[in-house]
């Protein structure tokens, strides 16, 4: 049986973060009921089409902030998934929570409908920075959310950290990393801020109202997190993802291993049968379309062999495991070691990559220039 991951997008937030360019609204809560209903209907539509061909190995409800949904709505969505797809016993089910909107009651509800992993958007424990980013919660809220999740019984918790935030200091990073270790958080996503052109933060930086840490500082922060977490037994299994052994996120790994996935909800991007397709980004259009029994797909792209090849390299090199050369050869009839001999020699000599036991992997010290490495190999 083929394996499948499911993503559900919840495009609602209490407030809009200044760096965020995801599709999410903070003033359309009146649409929540209709939206949840539409998502359930989309799951039904898709379920009829694909449900019986797949085993679902992971479900991720993200956003936006899924935790802003009213009580019972996550349960409704989860039930719909279980009714229409074959969700495996050991399926990883993650709910993303914003420290500002999550409650003990909601966490209990998630647990009851089978969620076994909670992802908390902490980002930073510096209240001044949280305020600049418009996060709408405080460091204490994050600490409280962690406490509640653990109290409710979640044994697999992720906390997000953003590096290279405005005014962020190395000491902020150290403090937060130490705190998470102390709380025995199993999984940490630590990624550098990406300045997206359409965001308020981008404009503020451009107008010099806000300054960001330099490239060098940001690299230092990242290296610190890597070294520190490694010492504490965390494995960086992907560029920005760290976990204790056996706590790697199955859902994330599926993306990087070119697995298939279906995404429900607004702006959801799916990958099935070598085709990537995306739902509309317009809330009303999404709801209307589903009401009329039509899938709200607005773009579809069949991935050809060359693109798949590039994507395979691009994604596999993000992981610490690296690219399985034999599998790659089998799939694309391409021996990368001979095809890219010169480049691989160059990268190996400069200690950027290593080829060991049939895997090509990027060395720890080189993850921060991954794009340049990938560009040489595709």
């Amino acid at each position, binding site marked *: 049986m083929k394996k499948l991951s499911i993503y559900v997008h919840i495009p609602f937030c209490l407030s809009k973060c200044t760096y965020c360019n995801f599709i999410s609204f903070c003033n359309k809560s009146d649409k929540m009921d209709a939206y949840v209903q539409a998502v359930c209907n989309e799951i039904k539509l898709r379920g009829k089409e694909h449900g019986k061909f797949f085993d679902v190995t992971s479900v991720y409800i993200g956003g936006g902030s899924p935790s802003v949904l009213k009580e019972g709505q996550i349960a409704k969505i989860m039930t719909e998934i279980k009714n229409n797809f074959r969700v495996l016993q050991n399926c990883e089910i993650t709910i993303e929570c914003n420290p500002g909107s999550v409650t003990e009651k909601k966490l209990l509800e998630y647990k009851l409908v089978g969620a076994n992993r909670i992802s908390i958007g902490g980002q930073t424990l510096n209240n001044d920075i949280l305020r600049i980013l418009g996060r709408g919660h405080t460091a204490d809220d994050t600490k409280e959310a962690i406490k509640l999740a653990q109290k409710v019984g979640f044994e697999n918790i992720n906390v997000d950290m953003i590096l290279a935030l405005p005014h962020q200091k190395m000491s902020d990073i150290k403090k937060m990393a130490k705190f998470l270790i102390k709380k025995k958080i199993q999984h940490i996503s630590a990624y550098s*801020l990406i300045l997206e052109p359409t965001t308020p933060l981008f404009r503020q930086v451009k107008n010099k109202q806000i300054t960001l840490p330099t490239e060098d500082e940001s*690299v230092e922060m990242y290296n610190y997190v890597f070294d520190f977490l490694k010492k504490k037994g965390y494995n960086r299994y992907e560029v920005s993802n760290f976990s204790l052994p056996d706590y790697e996120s199955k859902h994330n790994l599926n993306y990087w291993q070119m697995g298939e996935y279906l995404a429900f909800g607004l702006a959801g*991007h799916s990958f099935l049968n070598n085709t990537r397709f995306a739902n509309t980004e317009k809330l009303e259009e999404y709801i209307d379309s589903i009401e009329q029994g039509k899938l709200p797909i607005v773009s579809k792209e069949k991935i050809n062999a060359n693109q798949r090849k590039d994507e395979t390299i*691009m994604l596999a090199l993000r992981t610490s495991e690296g690219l399985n050369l034999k599998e790659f050869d089998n799939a694309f009839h391409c021996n990368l070691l001979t095809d890219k001999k010169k480049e691989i020699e160059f990268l190996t000599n400069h200690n950027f990559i290593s080829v060991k036991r049939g895997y090509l992997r990027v060395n720890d010290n080189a993850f*921060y*220039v991954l794009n340049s490495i990938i560009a040489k190999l595709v």
Partner: protein
Amino acid sequence: MDRQKNIRNFCIIAHIDHGKSTLADRLIEKTGTLSTRDLTEQVLDSMDIERERGITIKLTPTRMFYTYEGEEYILNLIDTPGHVDFTYEVSRSLKACEGAILVVDATQGVQAQTLANVYLALENDLTIIPVINKIDLPSARVEEVKKEIEDVIGIDCTDAPLISAKEGINIEKVLESIVLNIPHPTGKQDEPLKTLIFDSYYDNFKGAVSLVRVFDGEVKAGSKIKMMKTNKTYDVTEVGVFCPQPKAVEKLSSGDVGYIAASIKNVSETKVGDTITSSENPTAEPLSGYKDVKPMVYCGVFLTDGARYNDLKDALEKLKLNDDSIQYSPEVSSALGFGFRCGFLGLLHLEIITERLEREFNLDIITTAPSVSYKVYKNDGEMLEISNPSALPPVVEIERIEEPIASVSIYTPPTYVGNIMELCQGKRGVYLDMQYLDSNRVLLTYEIPLNEIVYDFFDGLKSRSKGYASLDYEINKYQKSDLVKLDILLNNEKCDALSIIVHRDQAYNRGKKLAEKLKEVIPRQLFELPIQACIGAKVIARETVKAMRKDVLAKCYGGDISRKRKLLEKQKEGKKRMRQVGSVEIPSEAFMSILKLD
């Protein structure tokens, strides 16, 4: 014979920007050759580049009809370029004419090209009609300029038409003067055909078309003709005139200016300066023709996308069809791949040709630093002409190097003399003479090595004289000089496309600037990149591009993988524009940016 009495063949000569093309427009308009509606500005400048830059590059003939005192005259105008680079085109059109209109800007007076062109016209025994243009401008100095023409050139200006081509003032006077003063052709209609090719171009339908001036005899469709240089014969398919669009006519007779098409495959067979005669009844002696033009400035022309080499080759072939002065031969660079070493008449010519390659043929061009042709004498007595720095033999084999020296005339208002002398001194110039032409203008004469002129002399001259100084130059000798090859090493590997030949005294300064500039334009690489400027094994300047520290997509989840792939594809696309020199990736722009170091 009668017919020729009513023909006038003339050209317009002027310094660049003195209003040559505008006057041509007015003449065309006034004679009703084109209706005002069809008249785009500068009709004879047909290339986009010509109109945009406001300069004439190719000469273009036009036939106009003008009635004077009840008689109809045919006026054949041959427009000519004004820039020093294209002097040879001027001399070509002069041979087809009996007279020349000399346009002088009433605000600027006699300039470098005015004089150069007048001398050319005099060499060709042309009757010169001086015309003072731009009299409508408040700063016009009509009387002074008239006197200047009389003093400097020695042409009587008493009856010189005072005009404004822009405003259409006194255009009639010019036409009258053409009829009255320019001699009519005196060819012999009944003699064997004798025709000068003064230009040629390629037409997709007609083949190679010759622009001709018929001296003796006549030619029509069906005539059998012979090129006297190649002895090849052809059947004429069409003869015609330019009005200014090509228009077929029954025949061309002695005195006429027009075109001949004969299904000729290749423009190289219609060699400019050749004489066309009848193959059945040939003339005994060909016309004197032209000197072959020799390129002055050379550079490598390469592509950002090496795969289009054949397109570049085709494009150069096509351009050469219409511009015989371009020379090219294949060249291989370790940095830039396959390309061509091209020779041009001057920097403007180089600029225009590369621009045409980009625009008309849609090619992305990389040119290397312009170079001149050096004479390299080896110890074993052999002499090599070298225009490509990387072709220079090892120093130990060289006995001496000689470089071309230009004799340079600079016309400038006195205020800028100091600035300009400073510039010339800095360019290894040798002062020869300074003449006060009048209270407003000075003629400075220098000897300056051509390699200094092609480097950035024009820009320097313009900026130091607020654009007022004008320049003419001519190569007059080769001279021994202490020249060295300056190499650039990127990550300790020589990048041949960046090598230049410079005078030893300037090597340090140039090397330092080059290294600094490259540091700016080469993006950070995966490793620290040393940039070194060297003479032989000696490093004279060094810069370092720090290693790249951060180039990663922090977050990469399912949703946006398509977008990430597209970013990657973009990066891949960008890499195509990068040149690999050893392990270093250099953007194509880097090769161009070193052309302007100041």
